[in-house]
């Protein structure tokens, strides 16, 4: 009775709609607790990050000017695709140390989170926009606009639901991003790239890197063409560095500390608002 030899998956980066290996040629070993699987994860470099920011910047104009309805449909599409890949993600989550039950719960919540934000894509503007009653003969209105390119350091613990919970509000709001996957649980984060790739998300809108936080965080937070930096974690020194580097170009630094991503309160339009700029326009009213 011969057992078929399994096919191992090579995990790569996701930059500009392509799956390159890291330009550095370096890797880090990842293995599950039982040491049943051993992976060579890409150790993404600052140059990979640089390339990803270029891609994100290039994609920004197109993505931010898509109709909100279209962005909503694409997010919904991601949910659909994810639904079809439940087993793959459950497998990866189990490899990353979850019980089967917990893994099932997490993928379900993750899919639902995409669906939840798919519905927000064309509504948060209505919740947060205003017509302001100014004391002059002017029409004055305020609308949210995408901040631009967002660098994200995803949660280390919650590598699927947390990853997605941080990512989706960013792109639902018309931003593009470069997101660093959990270093200790990278599998399902990078697998997400395959889902995004087959869900009409334009190239460059989401770029996913794997690698070492200690090595990349400095570049994520200091890059002058990044408009906002989202940091998930509790490391005070890292937070300080992120906030200090943000000063270089007045980045909006968003810190998610001790967030319980599985809770219902960890979703909502205010997460979208974190990477929005409010624009106010004046125009005279006359004949």
């Amino acid at each position, binding site marked *: 009775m011969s057992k078929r030899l399994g096919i191992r998956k090579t995990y790569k980066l996701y930059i500009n709609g392509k799956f390159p290996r890291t330009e550095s040629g370096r890797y880090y070993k990842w293995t599950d607790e039982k040491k049943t699987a051993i992976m060579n994860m890409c150790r993404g470099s600052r140059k990979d990050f640089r390339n990803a920011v270029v891609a994100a910047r290039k994609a920004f104009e197109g993505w931010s000017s898509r109709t909100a309805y279209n962005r909503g449909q694409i997010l919904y599409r991601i949910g659909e695709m994810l639904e079809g890949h439940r087993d793959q993600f459950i497998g990866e989550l189990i490899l990353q140390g979850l019980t089967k039950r917990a893994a099932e719960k997490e993928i379900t919540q993750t899919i639902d989170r995409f669906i939840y934000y798919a519905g927000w894509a064309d509504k948060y503007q209505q919740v947060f926009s205003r017509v302001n009653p100014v004391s002059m*003969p*002017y029409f004055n209105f305020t609308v949210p606009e995408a901040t631009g390119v967002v660098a994200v350091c995803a949660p280390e613990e919650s590598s699927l639901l947390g990853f997605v919970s941080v990512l989706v509000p960013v792109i639902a709001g018309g931003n593009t991003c470069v997101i660093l996957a959990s270093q200790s649980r990278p599998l399902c984060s990078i697998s997400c790239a395959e889902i995004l790739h087959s869900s009409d998300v334009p190239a460059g809108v989401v770029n996913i890197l794997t690698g070492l936080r200690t090595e990349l965080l400095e570049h994520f937070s200091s890059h002058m063409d990044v408009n906002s930096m989202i940091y998930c974690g509790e490391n005070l020194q890292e937070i300080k560095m992120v906030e200090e580097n943000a000063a270089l170009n007045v980045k909006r630094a968003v810190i998610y500390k001790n967030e319980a991503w599985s809770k219902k309160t960890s979703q909502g339009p205010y997460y979208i608002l974190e990477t929005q700029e409010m624009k106010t326009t004046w125009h005279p009213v006359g004949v």
Partner: protein
Amino acid sequence: MNYHPQIHPIDQVGVGERASRLFSRSIKKESKIRALKLALSMIDLTTLEGKDSLGKVRQLCYKASHLHDQFSNLPQVAAVCMYPNMVEVAKKALKSSSIKIAAVATAFPSGMATLEAKLNEVKSVVDAGVDEVDMVMSRGRFLQGDYSYVFDEVAKVKNTCGKAHLKVILETGELITLDNVRKASDLAMEAGADFIKTSTGKVKPAATPSVVLVMLEAIRDFYKRTGKIVGMKPAGGISTAKLAIQYLVMVRETLGQEWLTPDRFRFGASSLANDILMQIVKQSTGIYQSINYFSID
């Protein structure tokens, strides 16, 4: 000829803001006395009533040349302005004066007559010896887009005027928008107007700060483009010295020094003169005045 107006968009709110900023200038002391005397010299003392009589016009002419004889060094008004049938008596009354005589013509105030009738009327006042003709633009034709007709009409009236100066009344109160005011100003100037004038005084609103500013800017732009100088006459509702000074500020800061003369700027008004006189006396004595000390002809 075929006349196609050029489009110069006007923003109503912006014009209003600029006008009110100009009107907020504070004119005091020396500059005020100068302005008052200047304004007085720019008045077209006007009577345009159905009940005007020969006697009334004679009284007006006397007032024009004897503004306030108790006070020396006063300028005289620029002109008297009346209906065509009053020109003869005015000519007599002002025989020995340099005050100009202006007559309204072209079926004032509505302008609702045939071109032939209008030209005849113009010819008759010119023959009677007026210095200036105040015609009304055909607003109906203008609003229906018949710009060439309106242009030709003004050009023919100008032609009939001979040496007399032509003021074209736009009747801005019937043109409604500032875009139309600008368009009508350009048309009148292109067709040969020597002055453009806001109103007949029979339609409200008459001269407003925004309308006057738009017309002054049209004059400026026309001058810059062609080198031709056109005068401006706001008329209707300008009854206080303060308002007159505010308009002078507007002229000064839009067209500059060279328009601050009766040859280029006039006020069409009936009661303005007395208010200016009261202000002049007040400025020199420091005492607030009463109309009972000024003749009301």
